[in-house]
């Protein structure tokens, strides 16, 4: 051991300058390599959709540029809506507000209605999944009710609440609750008997069983329901708002149509699509976070 230490010391001392330069070079290469690889990965995902998007734009421009075209080309959409794009926060009172306010009003309604649907839906789904009698009694009713289109509920809701705001929230609620109930019930019914046996041996009480076994075990199913639910509620809010009026992206689109601002409609559709996508990803991401490790047994 000692011999070796003595031996290596002069060797490293001698070789110091070249070693340093050699050591520096390979250290940096993998680092930049990593960045290059990451950049390549990102590019491989981002560039193809960008190219397709650009091609679609060009196609649209060419088609709608001709005289007599009923829809504006993208260049005109941009010119018409520049103010809306770059100043989403203006507020001139009434419904003459920036897009941010319209979108946030719609999102607030969705947040209310959807949260309510999530809580009630998971509770009802648990009941239906757990109890045979609840399933026999409630399932046929659910199966009929869930086929009623969202907007069909709106007149009834308006009659009951006599106000647009709660009616819109109710429509969101009633639209998004069915997939949550049904998926939760399936998840609860599919809890492996083994987990129930473990809970029985440990003697968990029903509350503990719900939090410690049922919810985590059914979580993948519940999140499938939640994800379908958020998509449906974003669909429903636009339609509901067109009818109830006031601040909200749905009515903004309807208002633009009434005043023939076709470019504003196109811009709104763009935003609606992006937000719908983000909401979906949000719930999917949350699901991934919460159900981490549950699906593999």
């Amino acid at each position: 051991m000692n011999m070796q230490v003595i031996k290596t010391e002069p060797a490293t001392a001698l070789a110091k300058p070249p070693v340093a330069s050699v050591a520096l070079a390979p250290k940096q290469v993998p680092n930049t390599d990593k960045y290059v690889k990451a950049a390549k990965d990102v590019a491989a995902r981002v560039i193809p959709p960008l190219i397709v998007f650009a091609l679609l734009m060009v196609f649209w421009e060419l088609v709608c540029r001709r005289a007599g075209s009923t829809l504006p080309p993208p260049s005109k959409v941009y010119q018409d809506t520049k103010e809306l794009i770059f100043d989403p926060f203006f507020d001139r009172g009434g419904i003459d507000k920036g897009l941010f306010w319209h979108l946030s009003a719609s999102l607030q309604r969705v947040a209310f209605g959807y949260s309510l649907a999530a809580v009630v839906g998971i509770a009802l789904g648990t009941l239906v999944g757990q109890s045979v009698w609840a399933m026999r009694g409630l399932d046929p009713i659910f199966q009929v009710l869930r086929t009623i289109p969202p907007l069909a509920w709106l007149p009834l809701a308006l009659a009951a609440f006599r106000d647009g705001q709660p009616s819109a929230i109710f429509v969101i609620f009633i639209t998004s609750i069915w997939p949550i109930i049904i998926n939760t019930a399936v998840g609860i019914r599919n809890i492996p008997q083994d987990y129930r046996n473990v809970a029985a041996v440990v003697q968990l009480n029903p509350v503990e069983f719900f939090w410690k076994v049922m919810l985590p075990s059914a979580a993948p199913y519940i999140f499938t329901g939640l994800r379908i639910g958020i998509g449906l509620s974003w669909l429903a809010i636009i339609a509901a708002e067109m009818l109830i009026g006031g601040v909200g992206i749905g009515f903004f689109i309807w208002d633009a149509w009434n005043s023939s601002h076709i470019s504003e409609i196109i811009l709104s559709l763009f935003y609606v699509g992006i937000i719908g996508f983000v909401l979906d990803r949000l719930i999917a991401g949350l699901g991934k976070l919460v159900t981490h490790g549950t699906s593999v047994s």
Partner: protein
Amino acid sequence: MTPYLKLDHVDKVFTRGKVSSEVLKDINLNLGKGDYVSIIGHSGCGKSTMLNIIAGLTRATIGGVILEGREVNSPGPDRAVVFQNHSLLPWLTVYQNVRLGVDKVFAKTKSRVERDEWTMHNLNLVQMTHAKDKRPSEISGGMKQRVGIARALAMEPKVLLLDEPFGALDALTRAHLQDSVMALHQKLGNTIVMITHDVDEAVLLSDRIVMMTNGPSATIGEVLDVPLERPRKRLELASNAVYLDCRKRVLEFLYERHKFVEAA
């Protein structure tokens, strides 16, 4: 002497609609404290049903189970089960899986710190402290079964029920875990009922082997005492006359007198 655990004229009939099938008939079994008893039989002979009845997960149609002079007919931590497929909750870590039972059983008798120590103590018994923060999906099958054993032991059960605990493991891991269970039995003196279909395993581990006749209406065909000294050593027993004789008698029972008949 009154037995520690007693199965008293247990019958089990499963009824589905109008069809009813008798699975177990007139099962009588007495266990003393600290006994290691194996139940062996062909598949479908109702040995798992028997274990479930002791565990309280299934109720006997006629007769009952008496533990320390009191009838038991619902599941409880005094009869902890090690399940065949480990049944760990996949969203909890190894530690949390064991702690779940500890928290329930010792909610009133142990402080938070004591419960933590007790959980770690039991993980240590099965040599699994190193993986305490791993999830079940991140450890091997043998390790999962160790954690399952720790979870059951941590409930300080009066009777430990093992439902083919090593059935899903490869031969080497199985032998290793059998040695572990033997060592634990030696150290803690638990009363153990084990379901198995492995003759060597039954002879190696148990004080008595309960041999089941074929179903339907299966019952206890024969009870064999295994008069081998403990601690037992796997290698030494391989040529031990008593061991070989016991093994032969179990094999004769299973393959001569009660041959497995394919269910019609």
